[in-house]
């Protein structure tokens, strides 16, 4: 049993939890400013899931088309979000996008190039010029390995600026005092040593949680760790009903085929060889928003026009693009397709199916990355000492549906914004918060629980049932009956989880214990999703209901908020950008 009596403490100006894109961008900002900063990452940073991002990063540079405007990018992002995105945050992101991309280029990111030497930009879903008029090429990329190139470039920059890393350390819980967040309790995976990392500011950059679903493009490590930490600290999550299903996960394997494949001219076909997106979305076709394409594929499969012996997938055709283009612009997806589908896309179409990909919701923050909760009267209140950025955060720039290639942008823009605000806060005197022994003990509770529980069900038993429930009852299309059934199953699982145990109690690189601690986070993330998905009686963006098929702006143009005790509340959507006129509500163009 670990107790606070022998707990080592290490102090920093800022602790960043997570070594993916958002965390590494924040750490660059802070290390360059001379503050004492450390990154805690449960994997070596280049193993973070940003590495799997393929297609690119949006910025209105106008390199391929000759001109572009961040206001058009903003318009696309707001409408793509089905108006659930906050317009002040979207304005901030799109306006800062070109600078963010140039910074990455200066750091060395090996972007693909145009003949004139500028960064190559490709077409992507939902991107237009002139407020929805024509298709635009806005997505900057490094072939189809943009996430890999970006993550490695930023890790390399962190080596240069000498950021301190706690690699293969697992953050167990936030330490919360009366005044705010004091830091985190973290465990060295190799030795099981426990340390209190005390910080003026704690930045959560823990990424997504796609592992609550059975079929996901997400890595094994995407378990919602920051989301769990926030809920256990009595703080809320926002818009957790909004999960993006990517139209093109490889059938069976779940691995991602970038939207860039369609951006370069690929398209989806059903068993009759029909290019079915022309029927669902005559204007944007295969480059419609992801929620639209995912739903269309799902309908094709359900109505018996799916491919393969079981009719359980559709096909992505790119062979007509030719060998040279595929090898130059899409080499990674060719490799993945050969490995995981046994198909060479130079010759044959790739079997694909909508697959859980991205969480639009998360920890509510303002544009500076400061984490928000609600005060007693339901108004926004900043949580002192706590920030969040990247997929775990909900600023919200993605609203009810994220546009492809806006997520890498989100990471760097808001990772930087959080870093900038922490600097300013420290300059203005942000101090430490001193936890009592009881408050420290509280953050150690679940660690001790997994060490002492015996003879319970295994982590895998509960995890696989949880993933099964989410897959079947909270998928692309939802309805009250199945969701309520799923909700009850989740509550039972939560009860069973209390008695689960691990057999391996070793203190040497105990990955079983890590998986158990991750399961706690998956469980509360799934519950948050279930609560809010049941609550929202409309269809908007990625939240599509059979029983409420229409968007309902009168009742549901608002963020939903969930606390771990089951409380549900709402926050208004920000419709007041600082510089431009608000983008007015309209029906979304298909």
């Amino acid at each position: 049993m670990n107790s606070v009596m022998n707990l080592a403490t290490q102090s920093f100006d800022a602790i960043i939890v997570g070594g993916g894109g958002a965390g590494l961008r924040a750490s660059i900002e802070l290390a360059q400013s001379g503050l004492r900063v450390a990154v805690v990452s449960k994997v070596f940073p280049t193993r973070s899931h940003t590495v799997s991002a393929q297609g690119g990063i949006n910025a209105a540079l106008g390199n391929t088309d000759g001109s572009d405007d961040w206001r058009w990018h903003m318009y696309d992002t707001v409408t793509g979000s089905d108006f659930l995105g906050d317009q002040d945050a979207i304005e901030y992101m799109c306006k800062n996008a070109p600078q963010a991309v140039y910074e990455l280029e200066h750091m060395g990111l090996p972007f693909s190039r145009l003949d004139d030497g500028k960064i190559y930009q490709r077409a992507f879903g939902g991107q237009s010029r002139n407020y929805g008029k024509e298709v635009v090429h806005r997505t900057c990329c490094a072939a189809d390995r943009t996430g890999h190139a970006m993550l490695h470039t930023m890790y390399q920059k962190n080596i240069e600026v000498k950021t301190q890393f706690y690699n293969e350390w697992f953050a167990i819980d936030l330490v919360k005092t009366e005044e705010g967040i004091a830091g985190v309790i973290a465990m060295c995976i190799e030795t099981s040593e426990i340390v209190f990392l005390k910080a003026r500011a704690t930045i959560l950059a823990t990424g997504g949680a796609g592992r609550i679903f059975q079929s996901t493009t997400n890595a094994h490590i995407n378990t919602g760790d920051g989301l769990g930490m926030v809920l256990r600290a009595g703080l809320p999550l926002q818009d957790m009903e909004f999960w993006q299903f990517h139209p093109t996960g490889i059938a069976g394997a779940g691995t991602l085929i970038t939207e860039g494949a369609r951006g370069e001219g690929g398209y989806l076909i059903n068993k009759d060889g029909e290019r079915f997106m022309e029927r669902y979305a005559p204007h944007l076709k295969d480059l419609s928003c992801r929620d639209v394409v995912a739903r269309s594929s799902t309908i094709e499969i359900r109505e018996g026009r799916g491919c393969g012996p079981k009719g359980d997938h559709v096909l992505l055709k790119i062979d007509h693009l030719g060998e040279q283009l595929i090898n130059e612009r899409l080499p990674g997806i060719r490799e993945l397709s050969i490995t995981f589908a046994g198909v060479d896309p130079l010759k044959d179409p790739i079997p694909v199916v909508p697959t859980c990909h991205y969480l639009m919701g998360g920890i509510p923050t303002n544009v500076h990355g400061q984490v928000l909760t609600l005060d007693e009267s339901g108004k926004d209140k900043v949580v002192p000492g706590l920030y969040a950025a990247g997929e775990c955060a909900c600023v919200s720039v993605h609203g009810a549906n994220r546009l492809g290639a806006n997520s890498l942008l989100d990471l760097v823009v808001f990772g930087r914004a959080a870093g900038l605000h922490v600097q300013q806060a420290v300059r203005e005197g942000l101090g430490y918060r001193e936890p009592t022994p009881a408050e420290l003990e509280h953050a150690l509770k679940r660690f001790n629980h997994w060490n002492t529980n015996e003879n319970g069900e295994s982590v895998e038993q509960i995890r696989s049932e949880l993933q099964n429930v989410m897959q079947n009852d909270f998928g692309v299309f939802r309805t009250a009956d199945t969701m309520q059934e799923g909700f009850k199953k989740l509550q039972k699982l939560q009860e069973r989880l209390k008695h689960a145990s691990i057999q391996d109690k070793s203190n040497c690189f105990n990955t079983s214990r890590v998986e158990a601690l991750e399961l706690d986070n998956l469980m509360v993330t799934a519950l948050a999703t279930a609560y809010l998905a049941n609550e929202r009686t409309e269809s908007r963006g990625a939240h599509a209901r059979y029983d409420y098929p229409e968007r309902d702006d009168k009742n549901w143009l608002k963020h939903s908020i969930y606390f771990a005790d089951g409380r549900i509340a709402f926050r208004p959507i920000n419709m007041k950008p600082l510089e431009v006129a608000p983008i007015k509500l309209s029906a979304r163009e298909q």
Partner: protein
Amino acid sequence: MRFSIYRYNPETDSKPYMQNFDVDVKEHSCNMVLDALVVIKNIGDDSLTFRRSCREGVCGSDGMNINGKNALACVTHISSLKEPIIIRPLPGLPVVRDLVVDMTQFYQQFEKVKPYLQNTDPEPAKERLQSPEDRAKLDGLYECILCACCSTSCPSFWWNPDKFVGPAGLLQAYRFIADSRDTAKESRLADLVDPFSLFRCRGIMNCVDVCPKGLNPTKAINHIKELMLKDSV
């Protein structure tokens, strides 16, 4: 399918041993070696220890020695392997537990080559320009995932892991030397002229043989040698 797996927990084992596991790979739909390892851990023995993350060959976590050859477990098809499948940790690095090795020396060699863009010219307001031809010179270099399959298959690295940069680090060194935007070519070459950092490469080419991304560190090493030669003439 029988898997024979290297086991060692320094807390309880006086020495390493091989343990057999039989997995019904059809029943559990295991296509890749990683799928089978996950099944063993989930329903057989939760103490089996290995690293994994993306399960699609891009994060570089699960490098291990499979039937005598270094590879990523997540992109190695079980059907391509002879039974029993013998799985050991990457050779040449200290074992932490089971299939997990201590990668410190590998990362130190990576950091030694200053793997970040150096450019002393003032930053332009927009991007630095680079022709598609110059950009193409980085293909086959920047895709490295730091899985360590190459360096830990290299006898020269086994002998001098503290002094020989190794194929992964040298590939990175050349990635920056070859970048038209980098202005530190001379100091990068100077950093490698000692007898060990670069010149312990004997052209054995195990690195090329095992790289799961199909990269060619030996070629990069030869390019560095050519540049040194040119500079010294």
